[in-house]
């Protein structure tokens, strides 16, 4: 399974939305995930992939789900390189 697929599944589960409504260009805000729920989504992703996402990679208002996937991939690559 790809990072994107896994990320979408985690977001869908946490936000209780249909996975088909999630697009790469959606922001968490667009998906109706606000405030603490958004922080929880990030936490779930960090736990699932065992990575730490810096604050600047998790802009809930402007950052898209695509950006999140890229940020996770960057952390995974860094982890595997280390």
């Amino acid at each position, binding site marked *: 399974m790809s990072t994107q697929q896994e990320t979408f599944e985690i977001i869908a589960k946490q936000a209780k939305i249909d996975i088909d409504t999630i697009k790469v260009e959606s922001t968490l805000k667009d998906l109706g995930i*606000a*405030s*603490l729920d958004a*922080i929880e989504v*990030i*936490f779930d992703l960090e736990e699932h992939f065992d990575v*730490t996402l*810096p*604050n600047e990679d*998790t802009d809930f*208002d402007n950052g898209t789900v695509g950006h999140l996937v890229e940020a996770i991939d960057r952390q995974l690559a860094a982890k595997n390189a280390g």
Partner: protein
Amino acid sequence: MRRIVITGMGAICALGNDAASTWKAMTQARSGIGVIERVPADQLRAGGVVAEIKGFDPTSRIAEQRAAMMDLAGQYALVAADEAIAQSGIRFEGENASRTAVVVGTGASGEATRDDQYRRLYADNASRLHPLGIVKMMINASASHISMAHGITGPTFVVASACASSNHAFAQAAMMIRSGLVDAAVAGGTEACITLGTLRAWEAMRVLAPECRPFSAGRRGIVLGEGAGMFVLETLEHAQQRGATILAELAGAGMSSDAGDIAAPSDVGAAAAMRAALRDGEMSPDEVDYISAHGTGTQANDSTETRAIHQVFGEHARKLAVSSTKPMHGHALGAAGALEMIAVMGALREGIVPPTLNYLEADPACDLDYVPNVAREMAVSAAVSNSFAFGGLNAVVALRRWK
């Protein structure tokens, strides 16, 4: 209605170990924020930046036996209360003891004690814990020690509303004095939250930043601080009878609850508390010269607070000086309103408004006069101090210069 005046103040925070040095640092635009020393900085994200109190020796200011029974939160509260009581000259003999209240605002207290206990229990597998753990970490300890150290026997308790705790404490003290229940109160707030456990918990909320720049473009969040501010409040009559020096008048207090989100701020709730404080203090919005803002440095708080100020003050909002002293003493959570009261008292008494440090440039969502980076000399005859808490709990106090 009984008028309430302030006759003593005390403080300890990253800016100084007393009220005078704290205020002086505020006028000089100094910051107490830096890299943490209590915990290895590499155990924290964002460089481990906090506003720590350094070089505090509790036994130099508190009897050794008492200090040993106290968490830092209690020690901070007691030294600030001692200072305020000494300045005010108030005595608690005879009936005065039972006619005085102690109200301390605090969000958590006892964090260092809790951290130590649980490290011993879970990490060191200790077979026994220190017997004073409970009396050190109980949230009411700071109020109890102020009462015990000074023989104050009136209503004594702690109020907890996270970052609004101190202002809620001032409000409770004011209501008790006005109702005739007591004639005086020692009121303020304390917090000692600079521990690995607390910092990691705040980190997890993604609100900590490597710097604090309220209302500015490029702001990224809060920097935690610690400390205490304590004040002596009494009726005007009580103060005049004993020939006390009056520092300022506590005109009113307003409280509200957002009944909305557990973390996200609300302009409606903030505006309601400001309006309530003005109404309670019989103060028209146009009278206010200075607002000591909650101004945490998060994206959400600062734009929301700005909107709320516009709603309450209308045209007059643009004429207000609005500043946040959090870039100097950090966000001290339950003690925030008490430390910011030092800023308000100084502004009223000396005609200097402390600045909002680290201000880079305007954010379109924050379009007021935030007194950027440099203190300003201006006459302040009335001021408002805002505190808005997680959980949607808001408390605002309104003060007047004493002429």
